[in-house]
Each structure stands twice: as structure tokens, then as C-alpha cells.
């Protein structure tokens, strides 16, 4: 599946026109222009770009890759890896000094590990040389300030506004009969939940009334996804991952146990088998109208609204039944998880570092990134202030403005994924704990084991070393709610 030539030429012409207008408006050559001009020197080479397997590579395969080749003569070769293997693949290539990748997609909370291991190329000199500082500053602050640097050095260009927000069915929430019944039962108005108690009340209310046709909610429960919901909720409810003085894990506090118990209890008003639900299952159920609420990544909000309908790349998506009724809100607690996300980095082992950087700068630039986040099949979500405010984007579907406003609010209040030295090992512990939770084990026992596992890991890494990394992370404004 690929864009045919006329479409590609049309896109190229559109981008070229936009690029022609941009410098005039700004009074200077744009970052995209600069990147294209400088990259022509490398015409004829091929850049290997590591992308998450699945839908993510549709952008470089169908849009940015062909366009970049047309503009610069540099070919883009997309190499795919499952999301949970991207760190491994990156490290393997680095340790073997294979030069297998030039441009990397890096999950921001893994950036410190990769940078400290020497797998990433520092980008400050390139940013300065190719005049990208001004456009980097225009990235939404939460991504710019937290997903770009390690110990003050730029290692990645924040490129994806991932945030977990609440999607709900307005028709059910605004139904007068439902509103009256809910008010009678709970004494407050039926509206998007602002805390987890309300979430439970509403979920149970809808399940009691409509199941098995419609359930109150269907959530991400596969441990790889659910860990982000846990990380968010644990902090929203007041939990801290570690004691700042001793670096002892406090994940097994009363808050942690209460969150585990609540997550388990909520499964009762969700569809049977929800314990196995990942992104696709929850997404399908929401589009089919089988669930009233879900919390997920931004593409759900676009595709459920019908954006991209008819696009060949999205023909696997079931026909949405909630296009006219989808509502957007921040999740309970109002501090959504900035789960995963991606930054564009240059592999330190790349044989074409400058060309790799130029491709990353071009993709990440104001005008190209605005096109990319609007690709119907894109998984890249708005991450620049201009994306949230784009009139073009806001007119894409009837309540696209609400969608972008919610994403923007999420970007302002969102919570960062835990980031430490060897983060994945700590997250692996959460994933295993969640799989034990769904397996029916006692929450307190599971979390005590997790805390012991974390403590052992911290000891091995070095308490003082890890403490510095933790404090560096926890002192960021978006690490904890307060």
C-alpha cells in the first residue's frame, strides 16, 4: 500500500508551497528549508530509520520518506520493531557498533539510559549549526522541557504528543432519563468523571442499565498498557514511587494497594475478559459502541470521530458508530499520563549522522510536523503549540476543536512516565505485578514483592546514583501532581 505518484506529487507541491510561504511569513529561511538545502549534499545515500512496527511507519513509508527523497535525493529505509523491542534493538546495534540505524525513535523515559550508554548522538551542535533552536522552543513546553535533554544535552527532538485522555459517549451521558436516574441514585449530575469514585459510579450505573449491549467502561488492561494507567492513578491518588531520602520503594504503600484493589474491582463493570484488552481491543469496543468510556491514546479520538474514514491504510478499522456522539475529557484526577511518546534521535553509530539529523529536523519542523500530525493514518499526535491552534486541524471534524483543546489541556497538566537509570527494569516489575493482579493474587503481596524487587535493583545500580536520577526526574513539574 502506498501513495500513488499523482498524490505524492500533489503532496510535494503542497508542502513546497507551504515551505515557500513560510520564510516569507517569518522573514527568514525555515528550519525545514535549511534541512533540505543542507541535505542535498548527501544525495544518493540511504538512511535507516527505526520505527515502532505497525501503523507508525505509514508516515515515513508513504509521506515523509518519499517526499524527502524527492526533495533531497536521500532514500529512507524504514526498519520496524515492536515497541517493547525498540530499546533492545537500539542497544544491540550500539553494542555491536553495527551502524544499523541512522535515525531512531526513542521513548523519552528510556532516553537517559540510551544517552548514558552512549547509544545516542548529542544534538546541540547540529541544532545550532542548522538554526533549529527557535522552532524547538515552539514545541509544547511539557514535551520540550522533559523529552529532549539528558543532563542538559539535547539527545532527541520531541515528536509525539502522546497523552491518555478520556473518551465517552455523549448520547448516554446527555440522555435526560439517564441523567435523572443517575442524579436520583448518586446525588450528583451525570458528567465525565472528575475522580475515580465517580468513574466507578458511572461505569457501574451504565453497566447495570445496558449490559451486555453496552458496558460502563472498557480500559487498557494488558500489563504493557495498563502500567501507564497505574503510574498515573497512583500519583494522582497521592502515591510516591520512592522515599526521596532512602530511595526505598514506596510503591507498596496504602495508596498503591488501594489503586490495585480499585482497578481490579472496576473490571467487574467492564466487558468479560477485559483483563486481556490492549489498545486495539478497547479501541474496537469503543468504536462499536460497546462501552461508554475508555481512556487511551489520541488516535482513538480521531478515528472514533470518523477522521480518516475511507483511507486505505485504515481499512482494518471497524466502522465507527460513535462519530457524532464522541466526547473528550481529561481522565479522572485531571492529570493524564504522557504515556510513551517519541523523540527523534540520531544513533551514535550512524555512518551518516549529519544527514540523519537533517531528516529528523525536517520531519520535526513546524510546517512538516503540522502535515504529519494531520495524516489520517498518523499515530503522531499534536505536540507543537501550532498543532493545537491550527485552524485547518480544528476544522477536520465537527468537534475537532474540543479534541485539540483536551489534548492541549492534557499536555499542560500531564504526568511524565517514571524515568530512572534502567527504567525498563522497574517498569517490567509493574507489568509483572499487573499480570499477577489479573491472575487473582493478593494486591498487598504483589506490591510487597514489587517493592523488594525494586529495592534490590536500586541496590545493584547504586542507591546514590539512582537517587540522583530519581530526584532529577521527580523535581520536574510534571513528575508528580503537586
Amino acid at each position, binding site marked *: 500500500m502506498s501513495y500513488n505518484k499523482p498524490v505524492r506529487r500533489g503532496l510535494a507541491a503542497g508542502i513546497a508551497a507551504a515551505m515557500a510561504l513560510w520564510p516569507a511569513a517569518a522573514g527568514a529561511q525555515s528550519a525545514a528549508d535549511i534541512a533540505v538545502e543542507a541535505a542535498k549534499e548527501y544525495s544518493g545515500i540511504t538512511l535507516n530509520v527505526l520505527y515502532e512496527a505497525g501503523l507508525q511507519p505509514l508516515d515515513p513509508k508513504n509521506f515523509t520518506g518519499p517526499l524527502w527523497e524527492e526533495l533531497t535525493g536521500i532514500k529512507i529505509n524504514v526498519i520496524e520493531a515492536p515497541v517493547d523491542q525498540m*530499546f*533492545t534493538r537500539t*542497544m*544491540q546495534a550500539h*553494542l555491536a557498533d553495527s551502524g544499523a540505524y541512522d535515525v531512531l525513535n526513542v521513548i523519552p523515559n528510556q532516553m537517559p*539510559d540510551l544517552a*548514558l*550508554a*552512549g547509544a545516542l548522538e548529542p544534538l546541540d551542535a547540529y541544532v545550532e549549526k542548522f538554526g533549529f533552536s527557535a522552532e524547538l522552543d515552539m514545541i509544547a513546553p511539557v514535551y520540550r522541557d522533559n523529552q529532549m535533554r539528558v543532563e542538559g544535552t539535547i539527545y532527541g527532538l520531541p515528536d509525539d504528543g502522546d497523552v491518555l485522555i478520556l473518551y465517552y459517549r455523549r448520547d448516554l451521558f446527555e440522555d435526560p432519563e439517564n441523567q435523572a436516574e443517575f442524579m436520583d441514585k448518586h446525588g450528583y449530575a451525570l458528567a465525565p468523571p472528575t475522580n475515580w469514585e465517580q468513574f466507578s459510579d458511572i461505569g457501574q450505573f451504565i453497566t447495570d442499565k445496558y449490559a451486555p449491549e453496552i458496558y460502563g467502561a472498557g480500559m487498557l488492561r494488558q*500489563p504493557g498498557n495498563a502500567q501507564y494507567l497505574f503510574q498515573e492513578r497512583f500519583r494522582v491518588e497521592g502515591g510516591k514511587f520512592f522515599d526521596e531520602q532512602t530511595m526505598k520503594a514506596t510503591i507498596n504503600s496504602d495508596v498503591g494497594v488501594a489503586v490495585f484493589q480499585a482497578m481490579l474491582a472496576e473490571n467487574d463493570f467492564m466487558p*468479560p*475478559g477485559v*483483563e*486481556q484488552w490492549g489498545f486495539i*481491543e478497547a479501541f474496537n469496543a469503543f468504536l462499536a459502541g460497546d462501552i461508554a468510556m475508555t481512556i487511551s491514546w489520541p488516535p482513538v479520538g480521531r478515528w472514533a470521530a470518523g477522521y480518516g474514514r475511507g483511507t486505505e491504510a485504515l481499512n482494518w478499522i471497524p466502522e465507527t458508530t460513535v462519530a457524532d456522539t464522541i466526547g473528550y475529557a481529561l481522565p479522572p484526577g485531571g492529570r493524564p499520563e504522557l504515556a510513551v511518546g517519541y523523540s527523534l534521535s540520531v544513533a551514535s553509530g550512524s555512518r551518516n549522522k549529519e544527514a540523519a539529523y537533517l531528516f529528523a529536523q525536517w520531519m520535526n519542523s513546524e510546517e512538516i510536523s503540522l502535515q504529519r500530525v494531520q495524516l489520517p493514518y498518523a499515530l503522531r499526535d499534536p505536540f507543537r503549540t501550532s498543532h493545537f491552534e491550527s485552524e485547518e486541524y480544528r476544522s477536520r471534524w465537527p468537534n475537532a476543536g474540543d479534541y485539540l483543546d483536551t489534548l492541549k489541556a492534557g499536555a499542560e497538566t500531564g504526568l511524565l512516565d517514571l524515568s530512572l537509570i*534502567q527504567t*525498563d*527494569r522497574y517498569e*517490567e516489575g509493574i507489568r*509483572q*505485578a499487573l*499480570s*499477577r493482579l*489479573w*491472575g*487473582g*493474587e493478593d494486591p498487598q503481596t*504483589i506490591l510487597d514483592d514489587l517493592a523488594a524487587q525494586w529495592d534490590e535493583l536500586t541496590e545493584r545500580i547504586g542507591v546514590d546514583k539512582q537517587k540522583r536520577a530519581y530526584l532529577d526526574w521527580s523535581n520536574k513539574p510534571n513528575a508528580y501532581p503537586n
Partner: protein
Amino acid sequence: MTARVNELADNTTVLKYALVAPAVFVILLIGLYPFVQLALTSVQNVTMFGADNSFHGAVHYERLLGDERLWSALWNTIWFTAVALPIELVLGYLLALLFLQPLPLRRTLIAIILLPTVISPIVAGATWRLMLDQRFGPVNQLIGWIIGRDVEILWTINPSLVWPAVLVAEVWQWTPFMFLILLAALSNVDREQLEAAEVDGAGAWTVFRKVVLPAIMPVVVIAVLIRGLDLFRVFDVIWTMTQGGPGTRTETISIYAYQMAFREFEISYSAAIAFLVIVLLTIAVLVALRRVEIAR
């Protein structure tokens, strides 16, 4: 004359060694070198943050002793091998006995039975994961039809069901291997001995114990050794179905070593784990071979 014969014999010996030497060299190169490298790495300190190639003694081996997750993974591996191997052997034997008889479409049926063996284990795992899927899997649907109501069995999540689920996948894929080997062995049992035993009035169990088993034993031992080693290294099918979960309940030694080496990049520690596995397997194989010698 005697001197001439001795000289020839000596030359023959030299020639024999000369002819074998290249093969030995290649085997040493591809077998011994990685082993030595593994042993060396296990006493160094290579992690994701760098390679300290200086000698660190037995620090990683000391860590092995106190690593509960390792011993749990080792126990899971031994348990899995001990359960799966006899099941595959017995089912394979029974199938082989069945197919010793002249059945209609015998060749076609044998080819169909062998199909799982030619599938990659990772595909077998993925297939069984789908078969056991709670929503769309045919297994739950079938059970639902039989008992007359929908069932929501979480095969790969429920701690008490996850091992049986993995075992079914493993046995489904590798019983045909046992079947094939045993069918070949049984086909070669001396008919005259069987007939003589029958004429002498020996019962079925006595015929099996005194005639069939000794005849097929060398093949059975080889088959058990091959499958035993495979089961001890099991990775793909479990990884695809459960990734070692829930928690670490289905984590085997290979999965744990993989996690340490390629997710945590504790290269030296995972080398120590691998070295431990090699030692354990070598002992097991030597004991098994020794027992076979004694049996002979």
C-alpha cells in the same frame, strides 16, 4: 618387513589424524570458542553502560546463588520438561502403535499428524494464543457449546490454567516428532522374536518389556535426549503465549536469560546463567548416557 609394516601403520595413523584435523578444528572453532568467550564474559562485568573486561572473580556466580527468580525459572524449566516429556513419549508411542496397523489413508494421516512439527514454534505459540483467546478463541466457544452457556476462561492469565495451556501447545507440536521416531523404531522390531514370544505364551506386557522395549530402547533414548534438551531450552512457544507471565509464573531459564541479556543488558550475568545451564545440561546428558551404557 616388520619395520615396513610399522612405518605404514604409523603413516596411516598420521594420515587419519591429518584427515580428521580440519573437521576437529572447525568444531572447536564454532563450539569451543563461544564457550570460552562465554566463560570469560561471565567473570567480567559487561553491562549496557559499558564493558569492564577486567577479572571480577565469581561475583556473578555468587549472585546466581541468591537469585530467587533464577531458581524459580530453573524449577519451572525442570517441571515443564518432566511433565511434557513423558506425555509426548507416551502419546507418540500410542500413536506409533496405532499406525503400525494397516489403516486406510495411512500415509496421508501420517503427513497430517506431522504438520505441527514443521511449524515454527513461535507460530505454534501464536496459533495457540489465538485458539485460547477469551473472546475470539474457538476453545472457549467449544466449551461453551458443550456446557450450554458462554464461558470466559482466561487461559493465559489465570495462574492455575496457564501451565496446562502452554503444555497443550507444546505437546501438540512435538508429540508427532516422538511418533515419527517411534514408528520407525517399532517398524524395525524383529517380527520373528515377537512371534516366538507369542508362541511361548508371553502376555502383551511381557512382550513389550522383554522384546519391544530392548529393541527400541536406543532410539527412545536418543529421542528422549533430543526432546529433553529442547524442552530444557524452551522459549518460543511460552514467550509467544505468556511472555513468562502472569508475573513470572511461566518464566523458564531461557526466558530469564533472554530478559537479562537482551532487555536488561546484564551481559556478564546472563553469561553466568548460560554457563550454569551448560554445566547442568552436560551433567544431565552424561548421566543419561552413562545409564544407557549400564542398561546395555
